[in-house]
């Protein structure tokens, strides 16, 4: 065999396949980008055509119609708040379940499973009643608390699955050295668990960023709306101005994109970090 290692047939095949794949994945974004430059009339005439006279009107209208900046900030507050809360609770809980293996472990697990199976819709009315009693309706905290509560079970399972793989020898050694239980958790387990916590946090962030139901029902003030709820204002019942809607989505996608660019390395390590145990 005397194939050029740089340009072997397999390699070319793989590259060709990946290029096609990349094109397929990227096209919707490219389409969205150039469609925002069209008028609704042009869009209606042909969905695929390039804009005849590119104009930024759709962006101007999108920016003026809603308060995209405010919505983004609100989404960020709700996302960070509920993610931090859920991950903190789940890390402590997952550690306790994995390391102390309480006698009623099976019961707790079944309880968590049941909690995961409850659809959010069912809980809406009781949640509104509770939030009103707590004076938390129409506040960000009122969205953060139930959102975190609904995300804790899954997050807890992720964290427990990680702590189960933690070698018990480390904990035993720390105990023998006279480390307190809290110090073992805080100074040994948590630092080791960082990649798992990051994974859990990212999963949470994606859920919360896209969540529609809780912010819709619990928030009334326009100034407190989150992005998905705010963006819904761009979708008409019978008539939709597509370029304006796409422009709004485009602007709304900038914030997560910037986050991703900044944290790309952490995100990819986090997602693969738990895959193989060295």
């Amino acid at each position: 065999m005397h194939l050029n290692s740089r340009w072997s047939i397999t390699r070319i095949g793989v590259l060709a396949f990946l290029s096609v794949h990349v094109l397929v994945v990227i096209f919707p974004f490219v389409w969205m980008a150039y469609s925002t430059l069209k008028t609704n009339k042009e869009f209606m005439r042909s969905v695929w055509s390039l804009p005849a006279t590119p104009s930024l009107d759709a962006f101007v209208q999108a920016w003026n119609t809603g308060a995209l900046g405010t919505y983004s900030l609100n989404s960020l507050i709700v996302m960070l708040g509920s993610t931090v809360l859920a991950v903190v609770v789940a890390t402590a809980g997952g550690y306790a379940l994995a390391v102390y293996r309480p006698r009623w472990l099976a019961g707790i697990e079944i309880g968590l499973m049941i909690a995961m199976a409850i659809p959010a819709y069912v809980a809406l009315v009781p949640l509104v009643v509770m939030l009103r009693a707590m004076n938390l309706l129409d506040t960000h905290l009122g969205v953060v608390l139930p959102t975190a509560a609904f995300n804790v079970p899954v997050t807890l399972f992720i964290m427990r699955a990680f702590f189960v793989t933690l070698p018990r020898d480390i904990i035993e050694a720390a105990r023998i050295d006279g480390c307190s239980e809290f110090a073992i958790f805080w100074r040994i387990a948590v630092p080791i668990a960082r990649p798992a916590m990051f994974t859990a946090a990212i999963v949470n962030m994606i859920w919360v960023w896209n969540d529609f139901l809780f912010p819709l029902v619990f928030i009334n003030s326009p100034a407190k709306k989150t992005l998905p709820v705010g963006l819904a204002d761009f979708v008409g019942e019978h008539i939709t101005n597509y370029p304006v809607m796409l422009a709004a989505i485009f602007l709304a996608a900038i914030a997560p994109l910037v986050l991703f660019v900044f944290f790309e390395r952490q995100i990819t390590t986090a997602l693969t970090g738990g895959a193989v145990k060295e």
Partner: protein
Amino acid sequence: MRLRAVALGIAASVSMSFSALAGELTFWHAYSGQQDKVDFINYALEEFGKAHPDIKLNVVAAEQSSYKTKLNTAMASGNPPDVFYTLPGGFLGAFVAGNQMYSLDDALAKDGWGESFLSSALAQTTMGGHTYAVPIDIDSSVFWYNKKLFAEKGWTAPATYDQLLELCEKIKADGLVPFALGNKDSWPATFWFQYLEMRLKGSGIVSGFVAGNADATLGSEGTEAFKRIADLSAKGYFPVGFNGMSDQEANMLFLNGQAAMMLNGTWQIGASADASDDFELGFFPFPTVAEGKGDQSDILGGVAAAFGIAEKTTNKEDAVTLLRFLTSPAVMTKYVELRKTMVTVKGATTEAAAGPVLYGISNDLMGKAANLDPFYDTAMPPKGTDTYYTSLQGVLDGSVAPADAAKRLEEALKAK
């Protein structure tokens, strides 16, 4: 404008947890998500603020489909807004059944307020003899066609059902789709069933079921109507894959000249505004059916939205003032002008505000119709609507026999 909305929002958040004080009202509406809706409500609220500076409104807006979830939750948790947007029929009926709506009978009797509405419209928000909401606008469904395409091909608008079928063959032979239909959300095909039932048997069938009339029935006409729809579908008069296509996608076929006609609501006027120059919107009434027992001039039309007051509201006087303002002729004419939708207040749908197409429908079709039959799917209780939607989709794709569909629907309507 945005600053004002934000200011209102902050005010709303501060006062939300307290029940509204005298001179203060929480007002929920679904006029969001569309430029014409937003323009209307901004105009109305601004004018209201000028006319009644002593009444402070805490405004909450949501887009139509999400609004329903939001309002239903608020009502179910015993936390209703003071004045709010609602749909007539089953949606309002559920609140009335829960004793959550304030009866407007006394207010409507004063100063001829009640007389200013079309009685057929007011009837759709009246239950058990009491009126619980004031109707705002009327949507109607008619046949739409592409005038330019018809002129080019030498086709004429059909007057009878048989002519319609003949025309379909011609259109198909020309390689075009006779009817644009995108039935993914289930409501677009309902106009077909309802019009056929109205032509074959008559108006007021579903209203009869809802009112609990013992002799209410779809009759053999129900099966016949489903059968005709199945025929249209089997002959390929609808676009390929119409049950998975959205109404807006189907509309593109119509606006681009790939489909010749569309049976759809008056919102088609707004939806056609951005069409290319090869398109001109025309309308004709649903054709007459030769052997039909119904009045052949009847029009499918019903109240699209209404406003009501919660029973829990402490400040009912100001709430009524707000409703009277919203349904005043000046505000309603502005509504017609901005939204190109007919309104329920007499004389407000003027030719100048409505434009030729809408005025034509209002004047030539609705003015001459013996009956207006409200939309079946919104008049029915929610369970009936589900059965209606799934049976119709099944008939269209050939998986449900017309006779079975009629039987299922009849049972669902009887069960209430």
